[in-house]
């Protein structure tokens, strides 16, 4: 992507046709501009993420989906020379306020990365890591949590007999489900998933999609995906991003069947990207 010379085209305002959930908004992103050093990666992104719904982020590679996702739990803080304007509110509290506690914020969110990244520890320790971090030492609590999380991520039956073995000995798909289990072990309010299925075979992908279906309602889920069918299948709302801008955001059905922006139309019908 060429960030040095801004595209000469002018962009329309984002087209919204949001499907509302029953519980109101969980996240409110307002006018978010993000710069990696001199290069701007997000341009005035504003979107409301409904509580309990699944929101998909789609768009061509490099359009800023991961960047936006990482803003939500402030993982971008680790990046040098990063500047952010605008605000993100979690249940009305600005997470970029000076007084915001980043650690506490991340505890309220679970994150699943594009590449499975289990720790070099046992499967059990991987799953209960967020609890360990919270200082939980009660064995019963840990075991119960581990079982629940692994069951939710459809991994329990495969690993229940080898919980004390290294997580690195699992297959890529199993590792990714383990990471999901880890993300939901501490009962987060929001689950952020960055292309969780990109490394997986269709069966594992199907399992994870099922899992997302099950988790929906219970958690607010934001998922980045390149797979249109997946977005169409699992999400309630879809946001289409292009060159750092939010082009269209709304009901998944509308996005995929009657998109209101021609760019969205081109993208979802496979004319580019």
């Amino acid at each position: 992507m060429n960030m040095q010379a801004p595209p000469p085209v002018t962009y329309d305002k984002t087209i919204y046709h949001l499907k509302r959930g029953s519980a109101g908004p969980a996240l409110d992103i307002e006018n978010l501009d993000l710069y990696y050093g001199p290069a701007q990666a997000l341009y005035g992104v504003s979107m409301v993420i409904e509580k309990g719904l699944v929101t998909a982020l789609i768009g061509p590679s490099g359009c800023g989906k991961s960047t936006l996702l990482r803003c939500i739990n402030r993982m971008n803080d680790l990046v040098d020379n990063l500047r952010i304007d605008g605000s993100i509110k979690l249940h009305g509290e600005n997470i970029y306020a000076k007084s915001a506690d980043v650690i506490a914020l991340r505890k309220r969110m679970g994150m699943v990365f594009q590449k499975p990244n289990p720790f070099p520890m046992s499967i059990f320790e991987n799953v209960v890591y967020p609890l360990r971090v919270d200082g939980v030492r009660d064995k019963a609590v840990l075991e119960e949590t581990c079982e629940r999380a692994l069951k939710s991520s459809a991994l329990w039956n495969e690993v229940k007999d080898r919980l004390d073995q290294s997580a690195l000995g699992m297959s890529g798909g199993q590792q990714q489900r383990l990471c999901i289990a880890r993300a939901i072990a501490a009962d987060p309010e929001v689950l952020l998933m960055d292309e969780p299925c990109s490394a997986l075979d269709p069966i594992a992908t199907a399992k994870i999609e099922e899992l997302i279906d099950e988790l929906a309602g219970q958690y607010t889920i934001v998922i980045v995906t390149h797979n249109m069918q997946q977005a169409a299948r699992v999400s309630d709302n879809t946001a289409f991003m292009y060159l750092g801008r939010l082009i269209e955001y709304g009901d998944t059905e509308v996005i995929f069947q009657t998109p209101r922006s021609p760019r969205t139309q081109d993208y979802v019908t496979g004319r580019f990207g």
Partner: protein
Amino acid sequence: MTAPAETAAPTTGPVAHTPRQRRSMKTPRSVLIADKAADWVIRIGGVGVIVAVFGIMLFLAQVVVPLFTGAHVQSAFTSTQPIGTEPLFMSVVDEYKTVEVSVDNTGKMHANHIRTGAAIDIAPFDLGGKMPTAFARTPTGRELAFGFADGTLQMATLKVGGTVIDTKDVPADLRRLNEADATDGSAVYTVVSSDQTRRVSIAHEIAEPQQVAPEGTAIVAVDYRVGGSAERPTISFVTVDANGIGRLSRSESKTNMLTGKTTTSLTSSELPGLPEGVKVRTVLMTDKADEVYIVDIGGTFYRYDARDFDAPVLAETVRLVADGVQVGSVGFLIGEQSLVVGGSDGSVNVYFRLQREGAKTTDGYQLVRAHALESQPSGIVAMDVSQRGKMFVTSDSAGNVWLRHSTSEQVLLKLPPGQSVAYRTLTLAPRENGVFATGTDGKIHGWDVSAPHPESTLGTLFGKVWYEGYPEAGFTWQSSGADAFEPKLSLVPLIFGTIKATFYSLLFAIPIALGAAIYTSEFVHYKVRSVVKPTMELMASLPSVVLGFIAALILAPIVETWLAAIFFAFVMIPTGLFLSAYLWQLLPSPIALRYGGLPKFILIFAALILFGYLSYVAAPVFENLFFGGDLKAWANGERGSSAPFTAMLVFPFVFLGIFVSSDAIVTQRFGFVLRGSNRTSAGLADFLRWIATIVVAAFASYALGLVLISIGLDPRGGVVDTYVQRNTLVVGFAMGFAVIPIIYTISEDALNTVPEHLRAASLGCGATQWQTAMRVILPTAMSGVFSAVMIGMGRAVGETMIVVMAAGNTPLLDWNIFNGLRALSANIAVELPEAVRDSTLYRMLFLAALTLFVITFVVNTVAEAVRQRFRKRTAQL
């Protein structure tokens, strides 16, 4: 991506990819050759390294092996010409093993060429026609004494020696003795080089008789030593007469300068306490004439304390052989402190005097059996001791001749009996390179032997050895000293020194190096890191001789002066930093965030300096509180109690124990406060909890300290004791300087190579940076961190100059951090210039090198094995 057709985005559209040329399916020859060549170079290089390492090891081993090979016979011979069969008092051999001179029991002298037995002319002593009833010789054989039936005594000197002369000065008409030697009748000539010849000749002299015992009372035993100066010789002697009266006498000769006449005065005092009618076997007198031993036939030793010459005291009466056993032969070892007692049962034991608590003797000393050597098959009849070391030779009535070493207790050689059943005398060549026995068959039986390292066995190098005059067996290294000195070459103190230096320096270096590595890799901005890391690496390039020099000349006096402050700083600074970190947490978030960067960094430094200064200021208070006001005097055990210090040592562990065990309860009861959303109040609550834990832990550790002391685990006398200026603490600091950069850079690299996605995963789970570092990064990088520590350890083990200069080089065996040490490497550096090639010390230094090599090898192997285990866990990352 490709840009959509309808946007004017300045991106290039897809271009058809048409390769200009198909790739050739054949690999070019040059590539194949380069590949093979690289393969071979690498292979040869690798094998070469292995060969070189093993070559060095083999070379070291080859130098070391002779230490353990004992002795061997180079050649054995029997003289051909008969030399007579009279019983002999003694015989001596010259340094070059050419001539043997013996004295028979009629006082007649015999001189023979050893290898042939050919007689050499020798003038007889003028004994006034009397038959000697007693005979004595000093251990060198250069002074002799004859006692007579009329109670008189005659002293004599005998010298058999070689001088090198010009071949042209050799008399013309020599009679050939064998291919090497020729004689002119009274001396033996040996050609040593084209123009040099050795002449071995005999010189002897006898003095006027002196009346010692009452006229007509025969002297039955005598021993004497010559002291005083050449102008005014003092001869001390001890005699026992036929009536069983022992006398200690001293004769002084004065030469009148004017008349040239010599007057001799004799003073005697009687030795008290000898039983009536005692049958004396031997009398012995020490070099300084301060101890006298009278040995009766039955094996009882009467030891006299003759320090007061006019009033000798019977200090001890003791049997030194088993009941029913007689003394076969007895003599002093070199230095005249140790007695070798050979029994009629074949036993050979070595005794010396030791000051013993509760000794039932008048002088507080007691004869102690220090070495029990292997018994010979039959009773010991003769022995001769070396005048160079603790080697001696014994023969038994069956004709077995055994070459032995006292300190190492080993039998170096067992020479089998010859045709003639018994030997009349036994002589050890002055250079310890030959054993000669005059047989009852009228022949000289000789063995040329080689025993270059009689004092070393595996047992003496690595086990406890009882050296002469030491209260008990122990591990000692002392390679040089005054004459008649026995080198004490135990490697144990040196190995211990290496371990001690390594342990204390790693104790100091590991926490700092790892702490710094974790800090720079996980907590600071990469820009700070890019400054800190090269700086630390620069530290590693400081030559260790400079470090040692600074440590010895600057650091040692500073540490000595500010000892309490330094100790206190070890407590103060970490506590202070923790405290600051806690106070920082209490800051409201906006402030904390605003000043989180450089200001925080500067504040850390400020805190460091502040607490360093505080420990300097408060040191006297600390010293009063913990060390009775004076750390050094306290360490000696002179003042104060050990309890506060012990409490301080156990405090961290007690604290941790209490913290962990109380954690569950605290989080259950007060969790809501601790997890409270308000940062400041939660921090305050947590802070109070810390304070409470510290107070409880302080009391608990004081109690534990008291308990530990009462069960004998007092740190004083163990890890702390008498203070010397060049000590392990100083070495620890200086070596820490050398080791910290190594451990730091390697472990920092290891921590840094932990994949970023693990860091992200952990932070994404809501872990703090610290939790991420401790729970994820450190365990993942464990193999690298472990190697870092091991490489640092390897450096510490082999480090030489720092320990040479700062450690005081005292080969001790204690853990006292205030005392010096001598490490293997330092020992090699210090002693190699003094070591004569192929001497025992020389080979010992090679053994030290080999030991160092083995230690490093073992450390590295263990390290590698452990590292592989760690690595397996993270192999799939």
